[in-house]
């Protein structure tokens, strides 16, 4: 079997805001769906399938994709819901196009956590027998990861605070994120406790928003009016649900996902021009950078100024639209590769895109893009 090459040919994103209180889900979704085609020469009629990511639990609605099919432009098309952060939906779309079964796929991810409670979203993922009764949740898992990281590598909470402040500044400068006033490192340290040593600002900030990415086969991508970015590597992996049986101080599932994606692409991590990663806490982001091979163990805080441009969009810490965070990373990486000057990049050639899900970042997805 020969497989078609698959490209990202366009993306569109709403601003990520703490609350899009004046807009319903369908408004956010239809905004990105109508924008994603602009300048591509493609239209909704060219789309063979729509794959989407959203959460019944956050939406307060069973099979919530059913209610948004019209807004998604999915009427009379193939549609499936992949309930992660959008990057897994893109992965599914890439396999469908690679198989030669479709030419154009529309990938949509959205979230409105402002209408829900993000802590309950995570704690309801915990299995009901051992974890839930003791109140274990994502904050607890992230706090334990952070304690371990700081102790193992002699790092401090103020260093985490500086990282967070920097990410917010980047989001304000270049990300499509409603920031308001950027917190300083002192503000981050002084924020209320989330799970020691993490303050609430060291956890990613839940935001509302939607994102759409258009994938295409080689034949279509080469005819598209914008330069495509080719998907050259894909990998995913899920760790144990039992937090105590995961390897402390590392994200093994992220390592496994990265191994699969990078070896498929033949890409050495530190030769990548760009990395867009989803850390759901400050230490989570550091662990991801290390698992991806962008920094040695304990050194991710020092990797910020190395060869690879990391999270120029600000990443997930200032804006985490939960069910869309990974697809936002893909959209950002695509934008940076195709409009490098907007980001002060010279001539980037490759990007590592990372998405994650679950309590304590149990599951990971890695995709490589090349131009």
């Amino acid at each position, binding site marked *: 079997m020969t*497989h078609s090459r698959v490209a990202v040919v366009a993306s569109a994103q709403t601003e990520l805001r703490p609350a899009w209180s004046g807009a319903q889900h369908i408004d956010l979704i239809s905004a990105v769906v109508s924008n994603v085609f602009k300048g591509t020469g493609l239209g909704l009629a060219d789309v063979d399938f729509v794959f989407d990511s959203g959460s019944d639990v956050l939406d307060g609605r069973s*099979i919530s994709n059913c209610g948004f099919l019209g807004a998604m432009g999915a009427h009379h098309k193939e549609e499936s819901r992949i309930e992660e952060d959008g990057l897994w939906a893109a992965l599914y779309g890439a396999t469908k196009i690679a198989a030669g079964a479709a030419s154009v796929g529309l990938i949509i991810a959205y979230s409105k956590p402002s209408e829900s409670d993000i802590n309950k979203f995570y704690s309801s993922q915990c299995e009901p027998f051992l974890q839930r009764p003791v109140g274990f949740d994502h904050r607890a898992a992230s706090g334990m990861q952070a304690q371990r990281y700081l102790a193992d590598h002699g790092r401090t909470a103020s260093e985490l605070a500086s990282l967070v402040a920097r990410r917010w500044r980047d989001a304000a400068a270049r990300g499509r994120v409603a920031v308001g006033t950027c917190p300083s490192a002192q503000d981050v340290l002084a924020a209320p406790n989330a799970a020691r040593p993490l303050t609430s600002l060291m956890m990613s900030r839940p935001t509302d928003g939607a994102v759409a990415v258009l994938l295409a086969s080689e034949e279509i991508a080469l005819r598209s009016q914008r330069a495509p970015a080719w998907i050259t590597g894909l990998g995913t992996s899920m760790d144990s649900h039992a937090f105590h049986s995961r390897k402390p101080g590392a994200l093994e599932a992220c390592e496994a996902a990265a191994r699969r994606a990078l070896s498929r692409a033949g890409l050495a991590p530190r030769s990548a021009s760009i990395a867009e990663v989803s850390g759901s806490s400050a230490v989570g982001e550091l662990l991801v950078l290390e698992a991806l091979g962008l920094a040695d163990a304990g050194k991710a805080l020092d990797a910020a100024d190395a060869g690879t441009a990391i999270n120029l969009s600000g990443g997930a810490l200032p804006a985490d639209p939960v069910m869309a965070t990974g697809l936002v990373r893909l959209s950002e990486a695509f934008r940076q590769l195709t409009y490098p000057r907007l980001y002060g990049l010279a001539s980037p050639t490759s990007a590592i895109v990372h998405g994650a899900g679950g309590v304590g970042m149990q599951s990971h997805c890695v995709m490589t893009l090349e131009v």
Partner: protein
Amino acid sequence: MQRDVAITGLGQTRHSRRRTDVSQAGLAREAALKALDDAGLTIDDIDSVVVASGPELFGAVNQPEKWLVDALGARLKPVVRITSGGGTGLAGALAAYYQIAGGFAERVLVVAYDKLSEGALQYSISTLYDPFWGRDFAVGIMGFSAAYWRARMDILGHTEEAAAMVAVKNRRNAMSNPYAHVKKEVTVEEVLASKPLAWPLKALDVPPISDGAAAVVMCSARAAAGSPAPPAWIHGMGYYCEADNAAERSLLVSEPLALAARRIYRSCGITNPRRQFDVVEVQEPYTCFELNYYESLGLCAPGEAASLIASGATQPDGDIPVNPSGGCLGANPIGAAGLIRMIEVAAQVTGRSEGIQIPGARLGLAQSGGGWANLRGLAVIGA
């Protein structure tokens, strides 16, 4: 015919109204181990796992695949969950199909389940509807389905008896299915006299609420070569939808199903489905839907479904047997139901049915669907 992807391992749990002996994870594991064993493999041979289950409210665990990973032995493998309403079992298998056909994996384990005893089913389904304009008057899925059937009665002149004949056929077929947990033959008169739940739907038109899981091992052609059981080949499959503007929808044929049938049939050379298919399995949440599917799948002309069931053609000894397993009326673990339909067809075309075997079956059709009757898919499976 495409021979890219095969089904080489089949597994179903014992389905029942309430499986108190296992957790959700244990239920999924039971099906997974059976499918792996059937394929002569262990989880170590598997590259990737797809979990499919219904809405989270059914089982009150958010993103349950993240809990199941340990019970499946799938730690550090790719694990993803597809959830697309009641047809999610088929939608999950479709994702696995493309993981293989697209070169992402060689061997994929698909596990589909629901443990409906752990949630309030019709309450969960009621939350499908729009919170502003739909939820106040929508009660579960039954009212909607009654409107579906009533439209056929009014416009096509179909009768309550036609749906009752489906109940009689499927409940009789379920008697021979070792996995069915509702085993009681009924007569047309008993169905008609059973308690109306949302007229014209009556108690015996309605499937049970079940705990159950199903699993398959799917392989590339290369990986299927060493399989101990004869592989069943997926000739084509798809899962289509229609948007939710009910006012514009036809309640007579299922537009997304007819669309799926047109597209998939064309891709795998089906021009006369009634003659070419040896066996059909449909996911009939209520008896009336089976009749709708006859027409949407092209087994008979539009409006002819009542005559088709009355003719006996869809009985196990008819020329186009539908649901020789008993369908959902025998067991209905919703998230697994679509995959169970595929398992039954795969077993039929390889001569391995554990219930009523259709003699000489070589090519079959599995149908599945969900949402508010707007997500519809099918798979063409052959020897």
